[in-house]
């Protein structure tokens, strides 16, 4: 009796299992493999992940703009007496409010990582202990340096994007949230909830001006990430073998060719 179940999804049982790199780096589940036999797309980013992405992007833009204006204020404006004018206050308010929204959204995003699919967890851990991942990271780096003619297929983030996401967003944004709340605690005052939770940061850094400077440098790192992120997303959408821009809108990753790897 033939044990093998004939599956209509596998027209040729002798064909190699596709998405080898993505499978071995933990970015493609068996369901994903199954799915691409059936159709050329995989559902990657669930609704909460996509919502978070766009909310986060909006907040980051607000924070970068208002943050820069806080450090380098607009020219003096005499619209009214100081009592009736609150321009700089509103800029700071927008910064603080966006920071709060970003923090709550990030917390929700972390919680979602416990419930969502494997891709919702990808940016929170870096599989540096996996030699295959390192190899694929180097491969992707070579792709960006024009040293290999063809990129590979990826379901979630490619290893390079994965690393960027981990360092700039998971670590970088955590740094910005922590230093940001430590600065906010200064205004909220000693004994406030912000001071009790984040006041230790100022004690650690020792000098508020240094803390401001660190937060300011952090902003530049987010600016750098934003440029890389947007450029890479557009470039990958054009030059790679899968969809990029539409994926973060619809959640579906579509592939442009039928080759396995």
């Amino acid at each position, binding site marked *: 009796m033939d044990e093998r179940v004939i599956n209509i999804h596998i027209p040729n049982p002798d064909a190699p299992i596709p998405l080898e790199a993505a499978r071995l780096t933990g970015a493609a589940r068996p369901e994903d493999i199954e799915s691409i036999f059936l159709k050329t797309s995989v559902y990657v980013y669930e609704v909460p992940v996509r919502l978070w992405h766009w909310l986060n992007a909006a907040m980051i833009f607000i924070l970068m703009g208002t943050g820069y204006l806080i450090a380098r204020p607009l020219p*003096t*404006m005499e619209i009214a007496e100081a009592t009736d004018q609150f321009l700089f206050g509103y800029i700071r308010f927008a910064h603080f409010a966006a920071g709060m929204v970003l923090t709550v959204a990030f917390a929700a995003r972390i919680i979602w990582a416990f419930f969502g699919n494997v891709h919702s967890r990808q940016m929170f851990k870096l599989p540096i202990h996996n030699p295959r991942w390192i190899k694929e990271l180097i491969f992707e780096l070579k792709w960006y340096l024009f040293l290999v003619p063809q990129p590979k297929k990826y379901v979630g983030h490619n290893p390079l994007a994965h690393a960027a996401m981990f360092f700039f967003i998971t670590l970088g944004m955590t740094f910005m949230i922590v230093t940001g709340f430590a600065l906010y605690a200064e205004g909220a*005052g000693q004994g406030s909830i912000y001071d009790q939770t984040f006041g230790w940061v100022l004690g650690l850094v020792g000098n*508020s001006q240094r803390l401001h400077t660190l937060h300011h440098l952090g902003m530049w790192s987010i600016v750098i990430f934003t*440029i*890389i992120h947007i450029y890479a997303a557009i470039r990958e959408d054009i030059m790679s073998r899968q969809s990029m821009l539409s994926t973060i809108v619809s959640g579906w990753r579509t592939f442009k060719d039928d080759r396995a790897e």
Partner: protein
Amino acid sequence: MPQIETFYDVMRRQGITRRSFMKYCSLTAAALGLGPSFVPKIAHAMETKPRTPVIWVHGLECTCCSESFIRAAHPLAKDVVLSMISLDYDDTLMAAAGHAAEAALMDTIEKYKGNYILAVEGNPPLNEDGMYCIIGGKPFVEQLKMAAEHAKAIISWGACASYGCVQAAAPNPTRAVPVHKVILDKPIIKVPGCPPIAEVMTGVITYMLTFDRLPELDRQGRPAMFYSQRIHDKCYRRPHFDAGQFVEQWDDDYAKKGYCLYKMGCKGPTTYNACSTVRWNEGVSFPIQSGHGCIGCSEDGFWDQGSFYDRLTTIKQFGVEATADKIGLTAVGALGAGVALHVAASALKRAQKKTQEKTEA
């Protein structure tokens, strides 16, 4: 233990009336942020407690703390505090000199072991075995350690003793270190500032003598009652900050109008001190009121943060001095150029591939 006069005895001896004394007690209570119910408590403590011996030592410093202290704004407060503490050793203020002075120090330590307060002005340099500061023929660090050994508590006067100040600024040739880096086993109260405000100094001492305990300290070991808020939080120019009305140049109209000095590099938003509330010279003024930004003299490492007129710390790690904005803009510029090049190369490669495919087909 020899009989020491109470504070009240001393004050009465100095011709201070009971009425003035009670006024002083209420004033002190108010300065310390205490309610009216504390006035009789302070009075009672003053009437019954023996004066606490204080040893005041001087390391690497400029004596601006002493200068500030003896100019304590409220004259009564100055008189009282100076007589209140039994200032048994202070090489700048005391009449004795040479061997007599050193003998007084040894005497005090011996007599009041574990009961005196050690006030440190300045800091010890550690390089060359501490030879950069010699007191009575010995390195200051030795005197400091000896005097600290039996002290009840230590007050670090000023930015020098608290954080290191100018002599500890990079490259710190004498390796001057703040007191808390040398004395590790005693409670230390930091009263930073260059110099600290006189009323803050007398307030701290009065609190310690009245309540026989250290004032509440913040995370950095400063008395919370004077250092828990930034200059900025209570600055009278704060409404202009919130309005977005800044002085743009030292000689512009906005400077005359007294707008916020934020753009001129005022360190008020990053400096914890009581200048904007207590002010200086009997509450006459303070730097911002006189039209110049705060330089952040009561903050850790204030000499090493770059210009007094820049709100961001200078970054020296890249060989040349730069600000966070210069570094950020340079990095973004370089990245932008890189991305542009990458776009060009990608387009070229794609075009190449297409022509190849066409010729193959």
